[in-house]
């Protein structure tokens, strides 16, 4: 009995340490974003501030056009996430339900395209898009993000479809639905948690993408949030409270989306893309 109590205490301490290690950086960046300038570079370092200041945030929205970056990012990330999720829904359904000769080849194709990282092909993409005169237009990165999203979302969607029993659709078919009707009336509603997980996951990935956006977008009115941060860092003499405010703003949507959809995203990842 005593041994068990000691184990409980050790376990509690270790869990607390992991938690501290995970959240301390977040705490520190939030604290920094609210510190007044005169407390930023003082000794001893302050672990709390009694004079919270919005200076960092004000400066961010007044001198760096962060509002514009933010709305660009929302626009790009949401639209691309929707496009890739719809594509993934259609193709994931087929890959989960149908047997056909080149099914394995399609899956392998998706798998390998998922492995090509965005930064490796951003130059050829840039050259390709400049032929269409789409450089410095948000549409170009929407297309790129949709393509990258479609690859992994399809694999995730297939995993979710695999868990919905086929018999439900078969019953609908017997009742006189055609395949498309049974997909949209029966299966898709059951898939909603899965689809929202895929959508959220794509959104977070799009929101975080840096290198393609830096390459493709070159005027400040087109910047996304990561490109905005990148440009702030490139400027010499940036104050850490302003930059921290920018980082906090950049984190907000991902943390909100992640905390809402966490459960489903995780089950999608563990069941879909990596299956034992």
């Amino acid at each position, binding site marked *: 009995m005593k041994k068990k109590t000691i184990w409980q205490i050790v376990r509690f301490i270790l869990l607390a340490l992991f938690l501290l290690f995970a*959240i301390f*950086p977040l705490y520190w960046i939030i604290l920094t974003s609210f510190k007044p300038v005169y407390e930023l570079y003082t000794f001893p370092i302050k672990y709390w501030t009694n004079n919270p200041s919005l200076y960092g945030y004000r400066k961010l929205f007044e001198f760096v056009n962060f509002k514009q970056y933010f709305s660009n990012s929302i626009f790009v990330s949401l639209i691309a996430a929707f496009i890739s999720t719809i594509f993934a829904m259609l193709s994931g359904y*087929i890959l989960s339900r149908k047997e056909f000769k080149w099914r394995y080849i399609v899956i392998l194709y*998706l798998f390998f395209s998922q492995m090509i990282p965005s930064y490796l092909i951003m*130059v050829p993409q840039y050259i390709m898009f400049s032929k269409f005169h789409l450089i410095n237009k948000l549409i170009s990165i929407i297309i790129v993000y949709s*393509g990258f999203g479609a690859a992994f979302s399809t694999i995730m969607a297939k995993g979710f479809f695999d868990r919905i029993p086929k018999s439900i659709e078969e019953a609908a078919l017997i009742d006189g639905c055609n395949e498309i009707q049974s997909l949209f009336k029966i299966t898709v509603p059951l898939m909603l948690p899965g689809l929202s997980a895929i959508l959220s996951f794509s959104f977070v990935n799009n929101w975080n993408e840096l*290198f393609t956006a830096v390459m493709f977008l070159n005027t400040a009115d087109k910047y996304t949030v990561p490109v905005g941060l990148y440009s702030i860092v490139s400027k010499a003499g940036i104050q850490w409270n302003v930059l921290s405010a920018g980082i906090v703003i950049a984190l907000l949507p991902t943390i909100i989306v992640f905390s809402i959809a*966490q459960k489903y995203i995780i089950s999608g990842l563990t069941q879909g893309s990596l299956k034992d």
Partner: protein
Amino acid sequence: MKQRKFIILMLLPTILLISFIILYPTISGVLLSFKNYSIFNFGKVKWVGFENYKEIFSDVFYIDIVWNTIKWIFFSVFFQLIFGFILALLMKEPFKGRGLYAGFVFYPWAISGFAIGLIWSWLLNGQFGVINDILLRIGFIKEGFNFLSDPSLAMFSVILVNVWYGIPFFAIMILAALQSIPDSLYEAAEIDGAGYFTKLFKITIPYIKPTLINTILLRIIWVMNFPDVIYGMTRGGPAGSTEILSVKMINTVFYESNYSKAAAHGVIIVTVLVLYTIMYLKLTSKKEFSL
């Protein structure tokens, strides 16, 4: 016949989009690597054969970059695995507020690598960084470290941050696998009088081995291809001490504006990845890797 049309119609949008966004640029990237396309050369782009590759491999620092990449992959994945495993084991038994706890310990995984790099470069700042302050206060060190400007510490620092970033992913994967182990296995072992570590090594680890193999091997690809954290912290510096293959490639684009040479870097990375993936598929049987 109608069935076939249906299948093709449903798959076509995805296949076309991926071909356009990923396959075609990959092929044209390979072709680009044999040309001399750079910002100084737009007018007279021509075929130069293996010139870019020769240049890359004759760079005396290239071996350092390869070595940095190996260090980066090995230590990052090793510690991500160890700590992720421990975290998953700790979280296996239900406790009050586990869902909320998971949200807090897993969130780093949802943040952009670049932002994480920025956050930690502030925490590890040599003059005003809180990490130095904590280490000084607990008497662990006598003088502050220059984590990011000292070449001998920079690689250690970026790996530390990457470990922080990667623990949740391993923990998520391993936790999911742990929860699929039937309790009856443990009950039987307990009747035989097995202790915690016996159960760990005789039941838990063998049972989740497929997940471990898959996760480790996929993570190696991901970590190799992950310039974001380094880019937020050091951009490969100081003195190239944190320059890994992917960072080198991006620097070739952003600073040298030598697009063909960057493409050659990319082709080398993809080649390594393809060879590695073939090995991966051979190592893990198709049964374990069910597509």
